[in-house]
């Protein structure tokens, strides 16, 4: 069962030569054989070992002697606890950081849209009048949420569903890590993912990227199973999972490139063309309900989706090219990324198919979305589990031992590994704890969390504006939030009347003056989040307030520290009534 090179003699010789070489990753040996046939044999051994140990426990339980049975049971429980307790703790921590102050802030615009769609599918009497069922993306997550919404629409319910899916991803990351690098790596990967700010933040929101990441990780797991077992049925299952990934969010299809890159780079993973075709076919069959439902369900879904595709292909960049490097990398964790890269670099000589698969899973989406003009904070979420795994693998392989000092003594540095693991976990835990604590700010990054004051402003709109009210906001983001919580129609002033330059989901306000003069638009809503992004339209919006007897009827504020350090109430959303 022991890998042949892990003998104490070799180990001691290696570390006793000098300190730097002892800390080298390359000086250590992987527990897993690197060539696929050996991997298969190793997997079989592991499987038999598992069965054997289980059988011992099982047989003793059937022994007629009660004491032995009790002992066997205690052993079985102890074994189970040792194996699973760390994972249970990790999942518990993951749960806590994901539900802590989960609903302190209301939805952001994307959450409002997806929840609105789910409510429309569930035929909520009010929201189905405001939110169309078909917008831009496939509806797998909204479909699941709609089933929940049949029992009542609530923002908390939607977010809890997202949390459950996020926890499932953490759970899956453990199994993926165990499959690729062993139990310890699986645990470390799950722990990193459990605390990673990027994954925590996104999996607390009703976004499509969380479910897509879960299904993408499932695809990754099934692909790894195929690589491990060389059994085609795993590849077919991976095709099916990839289909579901697409149905969660169509950008998940990018990961198909990662699979093909992996298979192309690792020629030792033998894939028959026939199996590849069947797996691709399985993916297409699973995807098929999406276009079929667009065509068969009616309601203009096909047309709207086509318009969205055209717009998405030609829309202008919304962030600069360093967006992901400067925003997403710190969110994944600089130390995590550094450790993952260090692992890839220092362990390059013993690079196995696992590393290639994970690297492909990371590099392909990054390359794609870096080239793609439109960038979003949450778009790269599928790379979070493989990055966590790469970091976990590096940490697992990092095993410093006895080191000779200049004065001739040998020092045991084995404590460095748990320290390194702890340092990595703390490096992600600290920002995560800061993020999940409720705080308010006058600025906002799409996809990074809830919008302060949005839910409360919407609730005010719902309670204090007559049915049939129409609101004008600076942009469509706040309009979506007010529509979800306020149950009133709202339109963004910044939505371009040029169909080539607007999201086809939104209708432009072609002539706000006329609408106000005709009493078709009764409220104007200014918000600091949109104003910080579009000063021009914020200023234009306030012109309408001045021109049409605008009167502030409601203000949402957040408490922020002023330049002098004193906390002050700063308005973030102001609702004006206007009239001809």
């Amino acid at each position, binding site marked *: 069962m022991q890998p042949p090179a892990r003998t104490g003699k070799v180990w001691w010789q290696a570390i006793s030569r000098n300190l730097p070489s002892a800390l080298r990753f390359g000086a250590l040996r992987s527990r897993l054989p690197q060539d696929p046939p050996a991997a298969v044999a190793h997997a079989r051994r592991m499987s038999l070992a598992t*069965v054997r140990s289980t*059988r011992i426990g*099982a*047989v003793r339980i*059937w022994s007629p002697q009660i004491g032995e049975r009790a002992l066997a049971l205690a052993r079985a429980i102890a074994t189970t606890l040792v194996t699973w307790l760390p994972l249970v703790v990790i999942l518990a921590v993951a749960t806590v950081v994901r539900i802590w102050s989960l609903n302190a802030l209301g939805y952001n615009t994307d959450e409002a849209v997806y929840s609105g769609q789910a409510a429309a*599918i569930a*035929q909520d009497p009010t929201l*189905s009048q405001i939110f*169309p*069922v*078909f917008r831009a993306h496939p*509806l*797998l997550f909204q*479909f699941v949420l709609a089933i929940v919404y049949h029992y009542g629409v609530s923002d908390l319910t939607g977010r809890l569903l997202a949390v459950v899916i996020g926890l499932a991803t953490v759970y899956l990351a453990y199994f993926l890590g165990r499959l690729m690098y062993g139990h310890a790596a699986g645990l470390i990967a799950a722990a990193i993912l459990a605390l990673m700010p990027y994954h925590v933040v996104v999996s607390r929101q009703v976004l499509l990227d969380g479910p897509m990441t879960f299904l993408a990780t499932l695809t990754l797991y*099934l692909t790894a*199973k195929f690589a491990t077992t060389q*059994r085609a*049925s*795993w590849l*077919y*299952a991976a*095709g*099916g*999972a990839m*289909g*579901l990934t697409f*149905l969660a969010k169509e950008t998940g299809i990018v990961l198909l490139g990662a699979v093909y890159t992996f298979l192309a780079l690792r020629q030792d993973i033998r894939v028959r063309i026939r199996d590849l075709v069947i797996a691709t076919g*399985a993916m297409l*069959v*699973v*995807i*098929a*309900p*999406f276009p*079929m*439902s667009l065509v*068969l*369900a*009616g*309601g*203009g*879904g096909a047309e709207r989706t086509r318009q969205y595709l055209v717009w998405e292909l030609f829309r202008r960049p919304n962030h600069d090219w360093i967006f992901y490097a400067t925003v997403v990398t710190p969110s994944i964790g600089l130390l995590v990324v550094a450790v993952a890269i260090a692992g890839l670099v220092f362990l390059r000589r013993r690079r196995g198919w696992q590393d290639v698969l994970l690297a492909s899973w990371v590099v392909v989406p990054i390359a794609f979305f870096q080239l793609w003009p439109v960038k979003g904070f949450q778009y790269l979420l599928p790379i979070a589990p493989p990055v966590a795994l790469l970091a976990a693998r590096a940490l697992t392989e990092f095993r410093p031992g006895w080191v000779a000092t200049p004065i001739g003594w040998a020092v045991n540095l084995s404590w460095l590994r748990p320290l390194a693991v702890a340092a990595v976990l703390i490096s992600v835990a600290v920002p995560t704890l800061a993020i999940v604590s409720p705080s308010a700010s006058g600025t906002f990054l799409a996809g990074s969390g809830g919008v302060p004051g949005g839910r409360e402003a919407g609730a005010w709109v719902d309670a204090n*504006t*007559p*049915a*049939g*009210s*129409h609101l004008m906001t600076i942009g469509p983001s706040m309009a979506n939030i007010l529509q979800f919580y306020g149950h009133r129609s709202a339109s963004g002033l910044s939505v371009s009347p040029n169909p080539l330059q607007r999201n086809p989901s939104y209708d432009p306000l072609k002539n706000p003056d006329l609408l106000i*003069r*005709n*009493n*078709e638009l*009764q409220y104007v809503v200014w918000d600091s989040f949109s104003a910080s992004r579009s000063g021009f339209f914020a200023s234009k919006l306030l012109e309408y307030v001045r021109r049409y*007897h605008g*009167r502030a009827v409601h203000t949402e504020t957040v408490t922020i520290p002023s330049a002098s350090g004193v906390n002050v109430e700063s308005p973030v959303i102001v609702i004006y*009534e206007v*009239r*001809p």
Partner: protein
Amino acid sequence: MITRACAVLALLFTILVPGQAIAADPPTQTPIKHFLFLLQENHSFDNYFGTYPNADGLPPGTCMPIDPTKPSLGCVKPFHLGSQPISDLLHNRETFVGQYLNGKMDGFVSAHIAAGGLNAEQIARLTMGYYDARDLPYYWNVANRYVLFDRFFSSAAAGSFMNHMYWITATPGDPNHDSPPTTGFGDLLTIFDRLESAGISWKFYVQNYDPTINYRTLQNAGDKAAQAVFVPLLDFNRFLDNPYLFSHIVDMEQYYTDLRNGTLPTVAYMAPLGSSEHPPGSIQAGQRLVQTIVNALTRSDYWDTSAFMWAYDDWGGWYDHVSPPQVDTYGYGFRVPALLVSAYARQGQVNSTTLDYTSVMKFIETNWGLPPLAARDAAATSIASAFDFTRPPRPPAFLSASLATPPPVEPNRAVLYAAYAAAIVLALGLLLVATGPGLVARAVTWSRAFRSRT
């Protein structure tokens, strides 16, 4: 002297302490604590609502003879006016008599032709024109949600001024003249006198109000001379000379201010100047004015305790097929459109009670316990049947100024559910196929182990 001083003090108090100028709501017979009444201009019921479903509208087969005495000259059928240019049709006492024709109601075209003038016959045909939901979507939407009266008659079988006098005094004013008197009215009582005596707050809101124009300054009023007709209080000497009373006549902007400040009077009359719908003026401008007034009330704190009503001062020369009952020497005139908006208004009711302007006055008098002004309002039927006070007030709603569009085609949810459920089942099936051999092998191993030990 003392009276004048008190009046000045009261005025100063009103101006300086607006928030407290109006005392607590006086006791009422109904939940209506505020009543607003706007009088627009010159349209008959059939002209606006002749094709409204379930209302007493244009009878099928209507064709108005060009000359009732010469059927061979043909007739004019009702036709949709749309955006067609229109004229200010004749609408005075003589026109009424010619169109009414002792109850035969077949002189609507011939009366215009008989009056002569340029293009008389062409203009006379216009009398049979009508508007519908395409032209008046907001009014029709209001009718769908609140109350439309289809037997609401103008009080006087005459033109604007006499009807405006009925509006505020329940009398024709000067029975010999359908225009502001040259010396003004003296002691003639108005509804506002009744309110004032009872200590009930009131105001007269005027769109584009010019306080310098009244019956005394008509010579220099130019285009704004209509103010003295539409705001008949400006023809009363005491309302002009008493600063306190005069201060109750204010610009329409004050209405929006009062709603905001919580100083809406108990009773308010309203008059348009600019958006009156008086032909050939824009009917859409009138719609916008009414909608703005209603919207402001809808989103104010007064919604639950208010009623807003608007009607038209006379038929404007347009065709209406219902012969008006002649209740006295002066009226009724032809039917005019009238609509009621209130949280307590019955939903989508076409109210067919026989009413006139004094019916509204009757409701005000009954609600606030005021004595009648004259025989007409004493005998009038109140508009109370349009309310339903047994139900809680309806929540406020903005009505659209557009025709109700058909709801968008809803996607078939069953197809959606089936499609995505099928996708999940397919993927799970593939997963089961992949894990199947492993599961079977594990089961076999367990089974063998069990058997070997037993």
